[in-house]
């Protein structure tokens, strides 16, 4: 009940926006291929529901796979760079360079490497996109530590590994969850956009481009809704996990008391 009350303004705004959209389209008789009315999109959504959920799930798996590969690599590289200065000096420039590359430009090449029909080609693009925010945030969390806390651990004659487990990793968790949230959104975008460059036909990106090419824009819109919903659910799942994992963090305290 509290949640409904809290989110009431947002829900109202959403409904009002839909009504204005519907009304404008009807009043000005805007053509369907320019901007279909919500009701038309909704009809398309219902008519194509089975196909949309099927291709939605296909793309979601690519996003999840890429998320898993990219985030775990990002964390591993972060652990290495924070542990060994040499690793940091060697890897950091490459990581920064990788970030400034428009990764999506590599999509055709990755398609060629892993096979255009192989979901792995899309996963790799997603992985490269989410890698950087994951790594940078984890490094920050592992290294931005109160010097007194490090002195405290040294006064206990704690080993580097113990310091990592008891101090650096818990300290990094809030930073990592921020990265997971960014990565969740990015992974869905990455998966859909990478599909624009071709691939298995039962994928959201392919569906969106093909339906658009045949002027069935309401179908493209319906597919975009699926992509939005999946992205949102993914984000909310991370948010829920964050609450479970780091209830002590200052960003989450206000909601408890």
């Amino acid at each position, binding site marked *: 009940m509290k949640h409904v009350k809290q989110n009431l303004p947002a829900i109202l705004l959403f409904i009002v926006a839909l009504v204005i959209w519907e009304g404008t389209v009807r009043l000005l008789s805007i053509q369907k291929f320019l901007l279909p009315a919500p009701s038309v999109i909704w009809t398309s959504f219902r008519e194509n529901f089975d196909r949309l959920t099927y291709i939605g799930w296909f793309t979601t798996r690519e996003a999840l796979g890429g998320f898993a590969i990219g985030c775990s690599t990002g964390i591993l590289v972060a652990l290495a760079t924070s542990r060994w200065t040499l690793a940091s000096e060697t890897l950091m420039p490459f990581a920064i360079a990788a970030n400034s590359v428009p990764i999506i430009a590599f999509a055709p090449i990755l398609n060629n490497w892993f096979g255009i029909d192989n979901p792995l080609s899309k996963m790799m693009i997603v992985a490269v996109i989410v890698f950087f925010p994951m790594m940078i945030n984890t490094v920050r969390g592992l290294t931005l530590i*109160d010097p*007194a*806390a490090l*002195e*405290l651990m*040294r*006064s*206990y*004659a*704690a080993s580097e590994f*113990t310091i990592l487990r*008891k*101090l650096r990793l*818990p300290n990094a*968790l809030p930073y990592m969850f921020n990265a997971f949230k960014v990565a969740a959104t990015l992974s869905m975008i990455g998966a859909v956009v990478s599909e624009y460059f071709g691939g298995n036909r039962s994928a959201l990106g392919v569906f969106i481009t093909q339906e658009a090419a045949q002027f069935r824009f309401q179908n493209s819109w319906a597919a975009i809704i699926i992509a939005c919903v999946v992205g949102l659910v993914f984000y909310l799942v991370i948010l829920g996990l964050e609450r479970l994992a*780091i209830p*002590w*963090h*200052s960003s989450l*305290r206000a909601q408890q008391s």
Partner: protein
Amino acid sequence: MSVVALSNVNMTFNSSSANKTVALKEINLTIEPGEFISLIGPSGCGKSTLLRLVGDLIKPTAGDILVNGKSAHQARLDQDYGMVFQAPVLFEWRSIIKNVMLPLELRGYSRTDQQKRARELLALVELNGFENHYPWQLSGGMQQRAAIARALAIQPKLLLMDEPFGALDEMTREYMNLELHKIWQETQTTIIFVTHSIPEAVFLSTRIVVMSARPGEILHITNVDLPVPRGEHTREEAAYFETETEVREWLRAAKQK
């Protein structure tokens, strides 16, 4: 056997570069079991540096430091001392009791022993009932008491305290002084205490080491002949004011040097 023996200790930071700083010069000091030693002096006189040398958190440029008859390094490895900083440095992801359990955990005590000991210590610092609170739910004074409990967890023969009450208001500070005095008597721990406050030093100490401005040298050692146990009444005794005046005059001399 003395708890701490410093002979001809010198500490120079950045000794090779142009902006080298002589922090400590020819420090000789012997501390006997059960003493309460306060280090007082102008800002930047090397009080905290001296404390960190005893704790082997930094190494001296020259001179010998013995703690419990062994090298400071060995004493740190054996966890012969507990440390309290100006900030409580509690881990925000651990409840209060888990924070106090940390040094015991690192020493490999069983879970039941950890909890039993931590509860005793929390009772000693009058924090019973707050075991499962998180640090942010406690006031500054309470957090600092938890930090003292944590430092006492491994029953160290030596407690190093770096301006532990510097961030507290006057009333809380006086209360904490009483508490610390009580703890010192109950545990019979030797304490080295860095402070800026003359009243605090006089109230707590058996000896007060007055240090000069940089380069830090021991200018004078004041014996505090106030009866133990001390309490509110101590602050009204003539001997208390005399000692305060003596320290104040030496401190004035220290600044002018």
